[in-house]
């Protein structure tokens, strides 16, 4: 294929994109940076505060607590969804009506508005009224996600697994489908075991899609807001308040512009940093 041609006029072609994204990204970010170093008591009067908000946020117990909960949540999510997604993709039919049916049904959770996901699980898990709540309680287990932190955590994790595992499945499935039959034939002729086939053929071949899946799941779970908020509101107490939930509470609830802005930037930077790390690892893997 002919290599790319240097053409500065290409800037005109990217102009609409730059304008639209910059309008949404640059101006708000500037606003946030602005707020993060100032204090206001209303009436649009601002006082320079320097790094005070940053220090406050970074030292606050509340921030540490949310951060810790966020890290635990994201870790558990990744540990469950990635292997589960791969396992399901491996056991799915490869072609025919069964394959289409599976793909369509599995994609459904991905297209449900996030607040509906939260509401759906809310209704589903309610102790008396919900199917899950009723069944679990009738088995003798005391389960009430509105009152017990552990139950709330389990329910949120179950909800996220329900919601997003399909993404991992779809990506893994695409990766597995791309493996030519000849590899399986050759492995059969080499008398390889199922485990060897997984380890030496399947896993290496889906490395690329898997990295994307892990990156996406990591990012999105780290920024999660709507579903847990609708399900538990961050409670009971603040046992399920993750970073985004906390931030929105401070920003839109309390209108503490300064701390909210500082926290926003810290949050954004953490996400960017972790993504950059992932991205670099991914690229390095590609080169090998």
């Amino acid at each position: 294929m002919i290599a790319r041609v240097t053409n500065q006029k290409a800037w005109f072609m990217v102009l609409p994109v730059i304008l639209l994204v910059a309008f949404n990204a640059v101006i708000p970010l500037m606003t946030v940076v602005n707020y993060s170093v100032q204090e206001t008591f209303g009436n649009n009067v601002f006082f320079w505060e320097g790094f005070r908000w940053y220090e406050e946020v970074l030292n606050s117990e509340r921030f540490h607590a949310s951060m810790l909960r966020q890290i635990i949540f994201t870790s558990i999510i990744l540990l469950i969804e990635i292997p589960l997604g791969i396992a399901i993709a491996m056991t799915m039919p490869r072609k025919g009506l069964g394959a289409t049916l599976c793909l369509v049904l599995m994609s459904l959770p991905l297209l449900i508005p996030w607040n509906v996901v939260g509401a759906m699980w809310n209704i589903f898990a309610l102790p008396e009224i919900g199917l899950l709540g009723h069944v679990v309680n009738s088995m003798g287990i005391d389960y009430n996600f509105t009152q017990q932190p552990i139950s709330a955590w389990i329910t949120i994790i179950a909800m996220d697994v329900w919601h997003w595992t399909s993404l991992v499945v779809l990506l893994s499935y695409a990766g597995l489908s791309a493996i030519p039959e000849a590899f399986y034939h050759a492995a059969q002729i080499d008398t390889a075991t199922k485990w060897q086939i997984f380890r030496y053929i399947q896993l290496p071949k889906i490395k690329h899609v898997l990295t994307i899946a892990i990156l996406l799941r990591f990012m999105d779970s780290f920024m999660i807001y709507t579903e847990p908020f609708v399900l538990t509101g961050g409670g009971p107490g603040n046992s399920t308040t993750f970073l985004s939930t906390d931030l929105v509470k401070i920003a839109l609830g309390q209108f503490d512009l300064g701390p909210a802005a500082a926290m926003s930037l810290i949050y954004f930077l953490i996400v960017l940093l972790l993504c950059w790390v992932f991205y670099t690892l991914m690229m390095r893997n590609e080169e090998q």
Partner: protein
Amino acid sequence: MKRLTWIVPTLYIIFLMLPIYWLVNMSFKTTNEILGTFSLWPQNFTFDNYIKIFTDRTWYQGYINSLSYVFMNTVISVTAALPAAYAFSRYKFLGDKHLFFWLLTNRMAPPAVFALPFFQLYSASGLFDTHLAVALAHCLFNIPLAVWILEGFMSGVPRELDETAYVDGYSFWRFFIKIFLPSIAAGIGVAAFFCFMFSWVELLLAKTLTSVDAKPIAATMTRTASTAGYELGLLSAAGTLTIIPGAFVIYFVRNYIAKGFAMGRV
């Protein structure tokens, strides 16, 4: 051992369908019945919840609003992304790699960070509570995604096609619209699908930027949950209805779902 592997996807699908079934189940019950008895299917089957939604303007308007801005966003995102993706795919220009990376970072922005600034920005621009506001706001993460997907597909089309068209006398835009776009039709479909998906499901920004006129169905639902205090039947019906557009879209692209993930970038 091989015979039993179908159990895994089957169990998973059952797991996926359970909450949805429960939601649909509840949508056909009155709130009284829901609170009163526990049953796997409606004892007193009723369409009341659905009727209320279809006849009450505050309700059905929510759907119309949501679908409007989602549609607008998809059109804007894909249209803007097409020439940009082409540029990234075909040309080298000053700062191209950095620009691309900057675009991708926007996909990684936590919406929570932007909630307040967006509120102020769009109020200041006079766009508060319009469909356009949400459509534009969603561009923040949809455009980078669309550019990313389209660039992948476009790179799969050999440059020789472009060259041949020029030699044959096509002007750039005629070539782009009549020849190039059809050759990446699948890519446009995938990009549009993802734009639709992310815009349709997003709540935080959509709620923040609207109040009355452009209120999405998500906002109507959450407002009902808190103020009228648990009209569960109604909520269930509203929720069930939001699943339908998604189901439709999946059905239409069913043949491309796995392929779409596979082609282009992946």
